[in-house]
């Protein structure tokens, strides 16, 4: 499968900080790729590099098969880009704005633009500067979907939006997602975990891991062992078992390489006295917290 976005050791330094550090990112065609990370991790910088708004200090990126530094109006006509702090011609009304954009996009679809305006209940005659934050984001999304882009890039689209607007935003995005590649950055996982197909976790400019959503959920389990007497902790504790905790008669840990055959066998070998073994599936949020903590400990060590 080919990639809609592919970066090779992409880096960006601002004075003394490496905002993005040797990033290797692959966004497969047709995927919904969630770029997750805390505030200040480098998500926005990465996206600005991809959109040729910023120039890389080192490394390179390809977007729709073109070097990001050579993106031309021809490619931008196939990309929909919406960012949290998008600059818009504030004096234009919603209707005027859409009419103004139309000639730049050969694939502009008037009926679709109308649909989106109606669906989002955008006030056609109101100037952009007088729109609420939610309305602005919806106007930006409408203007970016109306030409059926092959690639949609959304930078923190949900920040500052109320639950209802987030809902509308997501629904109208998904309604048109088939055949489209979507890259979406967010510091809030809950919003996107159900519809993302891929996830990348970025922290301090590094891509800590990137994985398909399904395999990520499959390989993590919280394991709880119950004993009749205080359990002995084995010396050869497996590396894939994260964050062990023990109390009087319980051992708890997170298995990051869960396997339906191998894990129980390993537990049987190390803890033959366990009275009960319990595997809990974990939410993506729990998995990320575990990974972030593990990263912190690794650094401290």
């Amino acid at each position, binding site marked *: 499968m080919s990639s809609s976005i592919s970066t090779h050791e992409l880096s960006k330094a601002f004075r003394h900080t490496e905002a993005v550090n040797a990033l290797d990112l692959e966004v497969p065609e047709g995927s919904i790729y969630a770029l997750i990370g805390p505030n200040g991790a480098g998500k926005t910088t990465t996206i600005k590099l991809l959109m040729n708004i910023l120039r890389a200090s080192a490394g390179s990126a390809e977007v729709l098969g073109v070097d990001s530094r050579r993106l031309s109006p021809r490619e931008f006509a196939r990309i929909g880009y919406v960012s949290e702090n998008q600059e818009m011609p504030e004096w234009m009304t919603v209707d005027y704005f859409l009419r103004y954009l139309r000639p730049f996009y050969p694939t502009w679809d008037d009926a679709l633009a109308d649909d989106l305006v109606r669906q989002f209940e955008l006030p056609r005659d109101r100037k952009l500067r007088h729109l609420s934050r939610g309305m602005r984001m919806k106007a930006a999304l409408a203007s970016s979907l109306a030409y059926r882009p092959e690639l949609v890039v959304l930078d923190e689209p949900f920040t500052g939006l109320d639950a209802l607007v987030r809902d509308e935003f997501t*629904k*109208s995005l*998904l309604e048109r*997602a088939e055949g489209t590649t979507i890259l979406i950055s967010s510091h809030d996982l809950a919003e996107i975990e159900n*519809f993302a197909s891929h996830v990348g976790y970025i922290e301090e400019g590094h891509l800590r891991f990137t994985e398909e959503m399904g395999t990520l*959920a499959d390989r*993590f*389990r919280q394991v709880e062992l119950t004993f009749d007497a205080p359990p002995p902790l084995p010396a050869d504790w497996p590396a894939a078992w994260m964050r062990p905790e023990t109390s009087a008669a319980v051992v708890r840990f997170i298995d990051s390489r869960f396997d339906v055959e191998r894990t129980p066998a390993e537990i049987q070998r190390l803890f033959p006295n366990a*009275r009960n073994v319990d595997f809990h*599936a974990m939410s993506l949020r729990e998995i990320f917290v575990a990974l972030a903590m593990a990263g912190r400990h690794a650094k401290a060590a």
Partner: protein
Amino acid sequence: MIPFRLVFQPGVALSEQIIYAATKAIVSGQLRPGDPFPSVRTLSRELKINPNTAHKVVMQLTARGLVEVLPGIGTVVAATLPKPTAAARAGLLGGEIEGLVVESKKLGMQLDDVLAAVTRHWQSLGGTEPAQPAKGGRKTNE
């Protein structure tokens, strides 16, 4: 609108959860033969899931003979439903039964105690079918 109730649980594949909820609604008669079933696009939009996941759900339900895609009409609950076997019904309770067993084992209960407790509860709800006696004749649903 989605014609069955669904609250996503973490850690279980979304497609499985949706297939489960839809199957339950159809087997229990909440959705009847011929009733409209949401399209891939509607499932994706309303449940806010990936279109590929929604596609998988409809494919699976079609393969199991629970829904059919009628050209020009859309997706509907199949006119003739496969008769749910006792095993299939029990399968719909698989998660709950597993949870009960795990919690019971944690509490150090014996199987007979659990069966007795289930029997008592069953009878207190005035079940018309005679419950399986707790002692002897243990039945497992495979």
